[in-house]
């Protein structure tokens, strides 16, 4: 029972991180029709950035937010490369984000070296139902919930949020209303960068990250996004949690190396099922 509980809490923490990455993927995809292959990189940048800032002597209250802002700025730059040039179609943008991700490898190794890094998050642990649980794990889920609530408010209540929704729904009509579609796309990339950054800041204390951690973060984030149907960011929270807990259970009760394959197989099955259904209804899609 106590093993189950610790797997569960571990899975929720991990899944919250996936959900944050996934929501970034979804927002960028909805607004720009581009799947951002560099989404995992934002988390890595923020994780490394926080570690450096903390080493430089900054307090936690400053280091983490600064790293997240940095990730958002990197997001805007990524967006500029991917969609900034007029007439870049989604496939070309997809490959451009891949290029940005690889370029980030070079910058990350140059700045932070090729060894995994970490920093200590909240110290100490709580005892819950007879299980010792590090505080950092307990911190992640509430923060994630707050972030998602904020996202919901942003899209429902703010002008920029509504403009983004308009671009996602119909870019042409949005442009006719005077909304800068490109600008909204860049905002979406910036928001995606910040969300990835939050994931990186929260997850790095649990597990050291290295410059190529972005592949597994992207894969799991995309899997969660697919579970959410690539539609609303809030659904990604459910998708991420389901995925995180399932992986944690598989890793706990069978073998750790199976957990990523499980996520991949699950996602492939869903994608293929969706594709066959879509095929029957209307062939010309994407």
């Amino acid at each position, binding site marked *: 029972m106590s093993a189950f509980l610790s797997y569960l809490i571990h899975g929720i923490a991990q899944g919250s991180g996936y959900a944050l990455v996934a929501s970034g993927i979804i927002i960028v995809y909805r607004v720009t029709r*581009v799947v951002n292959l560099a989404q995992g990189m934002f988390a890595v940048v923020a994780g490394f950035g926080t570690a450096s800032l903390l080493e430089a002597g900054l307090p936690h209250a400053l280091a983490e937010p600064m790293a997240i802002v940095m990730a958002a700025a990197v997001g805007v730059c990524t967006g500029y490369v991917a969609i900034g040039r*007029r007439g870049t179609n989604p496939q070309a943008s997809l490959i451009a984000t*891949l290029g940005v991700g690889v370029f980030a490898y070079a910058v990350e190794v140059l700045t932070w070296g090729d060894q995994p890094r970490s920093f200590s998050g909240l110290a100490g642990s709580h005892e819950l139902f007879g299980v010792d649980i590090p505080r950092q794990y307990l911190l992640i889920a509430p923060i994630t919930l707050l972030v998602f609530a904020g996202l919901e408010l942003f899209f429902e209540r703010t002008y920029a949020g509504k403009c983004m929704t308009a671009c996602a729904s119909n870019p042409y009509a949005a*442009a006719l209303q*005077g909304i800068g579609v490109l600008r909204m796309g860049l905002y979406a990339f910036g928001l995606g960068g910040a969300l990835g950054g939050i994931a990186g800041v929260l997850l790095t204390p649990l597990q050291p990250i290295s410059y190529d951690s972005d592949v597994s973060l992207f894969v799991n984030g995309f899997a969660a996004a697919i579970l959410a149907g690539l539609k609303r960011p809030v659904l990604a929270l459910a998708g991420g949690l389901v995925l995180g807990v399932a992986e944690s259970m598989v890793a706990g009760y069978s073998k750790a190396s*199976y957990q990523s394959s499980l996520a991949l197989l699950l996602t492939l099955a869903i994608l293929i099922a969706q594709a066959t259904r879509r095929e029957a209804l209307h062939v010309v899609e994407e």
Partner: protein
Amino acid sequence: MRQGSRSAAIAAFAVAGFAAALLLDESALSVYVLLALTASVTVGVSLLMGHAGQVSLGHGAFYACGAYAAGLLATHGCPTWVGLLAAPLAAAAVAALVGVPLLLLRGHHLAFATLALHLMFLSLISELTITGGDVGLRGIPRLNVAGVELTSTRSYAYVSFGALFLIVVVARNILASRPGRALRALSSSEVAAASSGVAVGYYKLAVFALSAGFAGLAGGVYAFYMGYLAPGSFPVMLSIEYIVMAAVGGLGKVSGALAGSAVVFLLVHGLSRVATLSGMPSTAPIILSYAVYAVLLVSAVLFLPRGLVAWPAALWARARSRSSSAADATDAATQPAALSSAAAPAETVAPKHGSFS
């Protein structure tokens, strides 16, 4: 005339390749072998991306599949030529099998699916005991052809160039024949191709399997050349490198794949040689190679969507249209799909200037 110049180009390519294998010195030959193998895979990737409009982030896995097929057969007592023959067949068979469900997907979904394939293949070979797990497969015998054991690097240069030449000839012939026309048709519009009687699903699967077979053959040669295989030799980055080379050279053209892989591979190799000079930090080689791949990929996608081989033609056309009227635009519509005209229709909305927020 057209046919004649094509044959002449092929013959010149063969002469140049074999001459290089004959004349280069030992240290250059090891680069040559790897270049020929990389180019072999890139031809297939380019074919798939340019003519079937599909992005594959998993061709490193097919390369690995061919390598492990050859290595496993050879270490279990099969003659080495059987292993080499089995390598492309195994990779193509795997591709044909997984391609049936996978090719229902398009665009970024397929890109993700092939990436997933690569990751799952890696975790499979590092789990199985028969492949040696993480430690790898050791003691693969040298290639043995008609009783002669090939040990020198030069002999592998011949073998790898032979494989590349075979692949180039097959790819060119396919492109110039009916299946090639069908592929060009489906790359611009699957619906239009299907309504003109092209069996879209069949051709996509066939070109997927064929390009995997190319990768498998190269992998088989690699296994015998290295004599040792480990999951670490086939990172995800490998699959990305092929895409970079195909995109830089120009998608869908055999000459583009060859030019792209030669330029990118030699550039990265040259820079990594500079980076290993004394006084450079130990991480310099990987930093430089990542940076080169990234910059080349992004600039090829954004500024040179038809690739290096179309560059002179584009410059020429621009100069001509500047001097004469602008009427004779390049025959963009008749080109095989480049990135800018590939399967997905572009969002045509031009961003307007102002914005409120």
